[in-house]
Structures are given as structure tokens and as C-alpha cells.
């Protein structure tokens, strides 16, 4: 759109390909635009999400495998009944999930995976606060810190 197409370095905002070169534009995808926030902060946010999701999926899949081997998912109407009703084997605390998982209890491993998943977006906010603080973006460090405080407040209010 702008005439800056000769600058190919990825951090120029409007570095877009020359329209005549349709087959292989000079800069495509993410590199066509500069990171809106600081690049290391953006990368850290992306990785915090990716790592959280990966750990959680590993735990869930490991737990599911253990459950299958142990026959918890095994067919039959008796099991179906427990799946479709509210029952008490659900670990409700971090501690219960941890001890269960340490004993190789399948459902507890899955529960731990779910907990890691729940924590992932919250960790992402923490990473944002630290990241913005490190690159001295005071305004956004303050904004994300406020989000974190409000989030903690809502967790406190609703668990009371």
C-alpha cells in the first residue's frame, strides 16, 4: 500500500512485496508487519501458551492411556452410568490431583492436565507483566498488572 516496498528488513511496518512480483513476494506472513509490542515480549507470550498447552496435553494423554489400561473407560453400562452422573472420585484440589498423579492414578493425571490448562492463560498474564516491565513499557506493565490483580480478586471473591 505504501511505497516502502524497497525496504525488506522485517521490522519496517509497511514492508510489503512489490505487486508485480506475484509468485514470490519479498516479505510474507508475520514478517511483513513489525511486532506491535516488543518482539521478545510477544515471543514470550506465545511460548508461555504453547508450553502450557503442551504440558497439559501430555498429562491428559498419559492419564487417558493409564485409564484405558486400567479399564476405567472400559465399556459396559455400569461405567456409562458413572460417566453420566455426578460422582465423587473427582480430585478437587491441586494437592489431591498431585498425590493421585504421583500414584499413577489415570483420572488424577488428567485432572492435573486440566489444571495446567486452566493456569496457562493466568501464567500468560504474569509473563506479560514481567515482559512489559523488563522492556520498560510502564503503561502496559501497569495495565497487565491491573488485569492480574482483578483476576486474583475475582478468584478470591468466587471461592469465598
Amino acid at each position, binding site marked *: 500500500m505504501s511505497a516502502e516496498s524497497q525496504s525488506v528488513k522485517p521490522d519496517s511496518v509497511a514492508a510489503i512485496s512489490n505487486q508485480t512480483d506475484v509468485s514470490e513476494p519479498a516479505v510474507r506472513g508475520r514478517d511483513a508487519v513489525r511486532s506491535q509490542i516488543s518482539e521478545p515480549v510477544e515471543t514470550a507470550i506465545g511460548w508461555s501458551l504453547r508450553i502450557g498447552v503442551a504440558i497439559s496435553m501430555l498429562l491428559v494423554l498419559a492419564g487417558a492411556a493409564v485409564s484405558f489400561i486400567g479399564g476405567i473407560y472400559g465399556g459396559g453400562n455400569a461405567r456409562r452410568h458413572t460417566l453420566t452422573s455426578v460422582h465423587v472420585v*473427582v480430585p478437587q484440589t491441586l494437592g489431591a490431583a498431585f498425590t493421585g498423579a504421583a500414584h499413577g492414578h489415570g483420572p488424577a*493425571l488428567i*485432572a492435573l492436565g486440566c489444571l495446567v*490448562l486452566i493456569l*496457562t492463560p493466568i501464567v500468560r498474564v504474569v509473563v506479560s507483566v514481567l515482559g512489559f516491565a523488563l522492556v520498560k513499557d510502564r503503561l502496559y506493565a501497569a495495565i497487565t498488572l491491573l488485569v492480574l490483580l482483578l483476576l486474583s480478586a475475582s478468584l478470591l471473591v468466587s471461592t469465598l
Partner: protein
Amino acid sequence: MLGLGGGIIVVPFLTLAFGINIRLAIGASIIAVVATSSGAASAYVRERLTNLRVAMALEVATVTGALTGAAIGGLISVSLLSIVFGIVLIIAAAGMLRRRADRNDEVPPSRLADKLRLHSAYYDPARGEVVRYRVTHVPAGAVMMYVAGAASGLLGIGGGVFKVPAMDLAMRLPVKVSTTTSNFMIGVTAAASAAIYFGRGDIDPLIAGPVAVGTLLGARAGAKLLPKLSGGLVRMLFVIVLVLVGLEMLRQGI
């Protein structure tokens, strides 16, 4: 894929198709929303589709809204709320349909948006070009986000259906940016409610686990697909979902 989280599909599917208890279905759907958000967000952040500044600035409004919603929950009739929000969604759908061109020129200047450095650009593979856009009406957007947060707190929904129209109609973000930014934001609100559901024992690992894996895979696929679709198509899909959810809320309210 549309910045919603998929909660609206998971609950009816689990209860109707598998006969799973509604409480556990809602618990699993909250997990699904967190999985969708986090799973797709990393891809969207990498592609620089998400407007991270808009997301973080508006999270203040949504989380405050969710806090209010949780605090006043029970004081307001849920059926009345459902009717009000159902009507709001259908009006929002009409508004989004009217803005079909998805144009971002002639955006009124906004001092607050300048100060918060919200303006940005993204690369659109469907158009093969960089799309630069300006953000406007930040206070109006923040108020709508507050309502969106309160609605999710009160009605137990992800709130994406309210967040996307707020960013689209008030702040004039391109539709791909508003859907990916909404997707980024819903993780935080959903995680807060998910923690509460977990503490109550509403999240059964044997149900939520497979649901999380499934929605995560779906979210990854959706995240690959979305950038390639045309903005107009994304908008049309979103309008259809808005109308359906709006009608469903009206039906629940009446």
C-alpha cells in the same frame, strides 16, 4: 476459529448426544473454551493477527465485568437477562452485517487509542497484502467489553459473542483481528471460572480430558484456516452464529 471458544456447541453436544449430566457438561465446556483460546492464541500471536495491546487494555474491562457479574449473580433474573442479551446479539448481528465491506478508512481519530498505541497492521494471506488499521471509540468499546464480561459471569458463557461485536462495531477493528483478539482474551475469563468449577468438582477429568484434546486439535486446525479465509466470509459466519445464539438465548428466556 471465530473467537468464540466453542462452549456454545460443547454443552448441547455432551448433554444431548451422550446424556452427560449438565453440570459436568458445563464444566467440560469451560475447559474446552480455555483449550481453544490457548491452543489457537499461540498461532495467532505468532502470525501477528492478534492485537495484543487491544487485548490487554480491554481485559481490564472484561475482568472487571466478570467480577461484577459474579458479585451480583443471583440478584437478577436469568431469564430476563437472557432475553435482553438475546436481543442485543441480534441487533449486533444486524450491525455487523451492515459493516460488510470491513473497511477501516475514515476512522474518527481517538486520542486514547493514540495514547495506548492501539493502531496496528497485520498481514492478510487471503488478500496477499499488509492491512493497516486504526482503532477508535476506545471508551465505548471498553463499556461493551465490561458488559461482555458481566454477561459471561452471569450467564456462564465465554463472552466471545459479545467481544467480537464490541471490537467490530465500536472500535472498527478488521474482522480477523477482532476474532483472534477475542480468542486471546476469552482464555483469561474462562480460566477464572474454570478454577471455580474445578474447586466445586464440576470438572470430571474423564469427560473434560478428551473434550480438551478434541477442541485443542480443532482449534489448531481452525487457526490454520482462519487467516486464509476472506474477511467477508468470516464476517458472514460470525453473523450466522450471532443470530443462532441470540435466538437460543431468547428461547431460554421465554
